[in-house]
């Protein structure tokens, strides 16, 4: 039994631990945060997404096939995964081989080679990747077969030439990690190249706007979309990305404004840098947001006509399959893609330790000291990251997600992953049942439904 000297008496640690009573209101992490706030006088900024526990896709199960539902043979019978995005108005919709896309992450937040790797990985897997706040880099365009160009409130690097080079345009209204918040890129990550692309002095904190500079509300947005379509000859699909705040109304308004595709980002969605209090306390989880968004699409008879991409905490093929079964057309990954590239790898454990953290916990992406060379603009750190290898790892991961999704679809007797439906799902908890709108397992009960 470990013992510790304390003055003259020996204390049995085991005994001590069993006698100590931790406060549910003031657990150790809360106490540490109060102490940190008192010391520094500033809120905590970090990357990643919500870390608190919320009802999510793990709270759902597939029923599988039975007497009345025939399964498909694994590896034998075809189960297709392709998806077409943006055929409502655009003359050149996007064709993806898998219903999993890579979400917008900025050059600035990420190194140039990390952006290149995202493009390489997505291209090998037959899917799209997305630019971010700060514009489009040539490396990213070159290595991405399908590239979605974001139009953000800051308009950093917004350029009509790049608009025409893009395969789709995503108007970012909000982000799940911070619905109502703008971007934040702190001075230490503003290299000369990043500053130049954003028309700002080097080394200063960049406060990306939280509202668009040239439109307010859905009626204006409809006209903004008209302008973008006119500039690009009505070729490119127009996505509207919303953070999960009021997804029922926001989806309906996005459809009314003329979106080809709605991108819905739940509160577990990642960010490069945001106040912890914002990440953990604003917006709703992906699970109820998805249900509300699908309801809006169905009520307007636009389900599958305007496609829905959902993001925020997608980690496995199970998450993908459940999102599709609830009515999404595709999903998007951000944090998971960075982990696949090599972020938070145990190979850098010693360096994570020297930053006061550990592999699996590192979320100070805004500081630019990422040992994996991914969320940094430091040339030495960035040089550690091999974009070819990173791209291969991302492609492997995307392939696993697609295979897992197919496995679950076949088990439910579906020859296309889009044939998965809410009827295939049950919930493990009353909360998830109410949020997802599927019955509690073993019952025909959905709270709130007659």
């Amino acid at each position, binding site marked *: 039994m470990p013992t510790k000297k304390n003055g003259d008496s020996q204390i049995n640690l085991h005994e001590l631990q069993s006698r100590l009573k931790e406060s549910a209101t003031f657990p150790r992490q809360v106490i540490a945060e109060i102490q940190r706030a008192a010391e520094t006088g500033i809120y905590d900024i970090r990357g990643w997404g919500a870390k608190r526990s919320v009802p999510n896709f793990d709270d759902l199960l597939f029923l599988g096939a039975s007497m009345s539902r025939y399964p498909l043979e694994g590896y034998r019978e075809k189960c297709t995964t392709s998806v077409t995005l943006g055929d409502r108005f655009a003359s050149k919709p996007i064709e993806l081989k898998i219903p999993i896309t890579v979400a917008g992450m900025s050059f600035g937040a990420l190194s140039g080679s990390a952006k290149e790797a995202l493009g390489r990985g997505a291209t090998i897997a037959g899917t799209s990747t997305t630019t971010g706040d700060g514009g489009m880099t040539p490396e990213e365009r070159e290595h991405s077969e399908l590239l979605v160009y974001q139009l953000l409130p800051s*308009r950093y690097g917004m350029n009509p030439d790049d608009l025409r080079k893009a395969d789709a345009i995503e108007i970012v209204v909000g982000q799940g990690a911070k619905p109502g918040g703008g971007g934040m890129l702190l001075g230490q990550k503003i290299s000369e190249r990043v500053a130049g692309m954003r028309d700002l002095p080097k080394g200063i904190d960049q406060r990306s706007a939280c509202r668009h500079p040239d439109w307010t509300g859905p009626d204006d947005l409809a006209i903004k979309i008209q302008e973008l379509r006119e500039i690009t000859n009505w070729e490119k699909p127009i996505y509207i990305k919303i953070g999960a705040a009021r997804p029922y109304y926001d989806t309906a308004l996005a459809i009314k404004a003329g979106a080809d595709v709605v991108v819905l980002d739940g509160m577990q969605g990642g960010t490069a840098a945001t106040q912890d209090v914002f990440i953990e306390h604003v917006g709703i989880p992906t699970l109820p947001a998805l249900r509300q968004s699908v309801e809006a699409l169905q009520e307007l008879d636009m389900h599958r006509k305007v496609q829905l991409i959902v993001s925020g905490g997608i980690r496995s093929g199970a998450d993908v399959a459940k999102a599709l079964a609830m009515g999404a057309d595709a999903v998007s990954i951000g944090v998971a893609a960075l982990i696949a590239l090599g972020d938070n790898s145990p190979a850098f454990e010693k360096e994570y330790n020297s930053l006061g953290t550990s592999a699996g916990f590192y979320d100070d992406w805004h500081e630019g000291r990422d040992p994996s060379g991914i969320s940094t603009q430091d040339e030495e750190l960035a040089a550690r990251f091999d974009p070819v290898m990173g791209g291969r790892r991302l492609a492997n991961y995307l392939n696993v997600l697609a295979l897992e999704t197919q496995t679950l679809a076949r088990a439910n007797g579906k020859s296309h992953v889009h044939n998965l439906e809410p009827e295939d799902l049950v919930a493990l908890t009353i909360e998830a049942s109410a949020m997802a709108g599927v019955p509690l397992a073993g019952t025909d009960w959905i709270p709130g439904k007659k």
Partner: protein
Amino acid sequence: MPLEYDLASGSTRELNKKLHALGIANKVDNICITNPNGAHALAVGLTRPLKVNIKGHVGYYCAGMNQIAEVNIDGNAGPAVAENMMSGYVTVTGNVSHYAGATSHGGTLLVCGDASSRCGISLKGADIIVKGSVGHMSAFMAQTGRMVICGDAGETLGDSIYETQLYVRGSVASLGTDCIQKSMTEKHKNELETLLVSAGITGADAAEFNRFGSARKLYNFKVDNADAY
């Protein structure tokens, strides 16, 4: 003879397609557009050396994302005229609504009348010259480029401004966060004179203008400045 396009019988889509196809091989084409009647997104995304003359009032985003072309609006313009312009020259003979020249990277926007609120918001390098006055929150988060206001400026001019130069001849209702008056040196007078001459403004003397810009106190977050936000 300039080409003519009558929007009373045509459409915005057909007009923009036509404009995108004109001006090939460095030949400057002239086109006159009649009966715009407040239509949106006219003459957007131009990339070639055209001279476009619009006879009448236009709606939102006229000459949006312009490159190289010269667009003259003989009337008033709705919100976000010449938004995100990269180069070229856009003139409005009348007044303009909100967000004129928003996020423009290059070229010149000349407004002969007044501009409404948020003129030059997030400006990224273009020149905006307003013969009349501008509304509240103009030059909000303006990053670089120059704004010349021959009349008055509304409340909170230059809020959270970065490196844009602001020249105002008349009164300023109030300055926004981190925006201060700066000295008018010979260099700045010369710069302003060049801008006034290029815009054909003869009635205003550079010496009558005051210069405003960033105090640069909020460039890096300091907790002691928290009450400034």
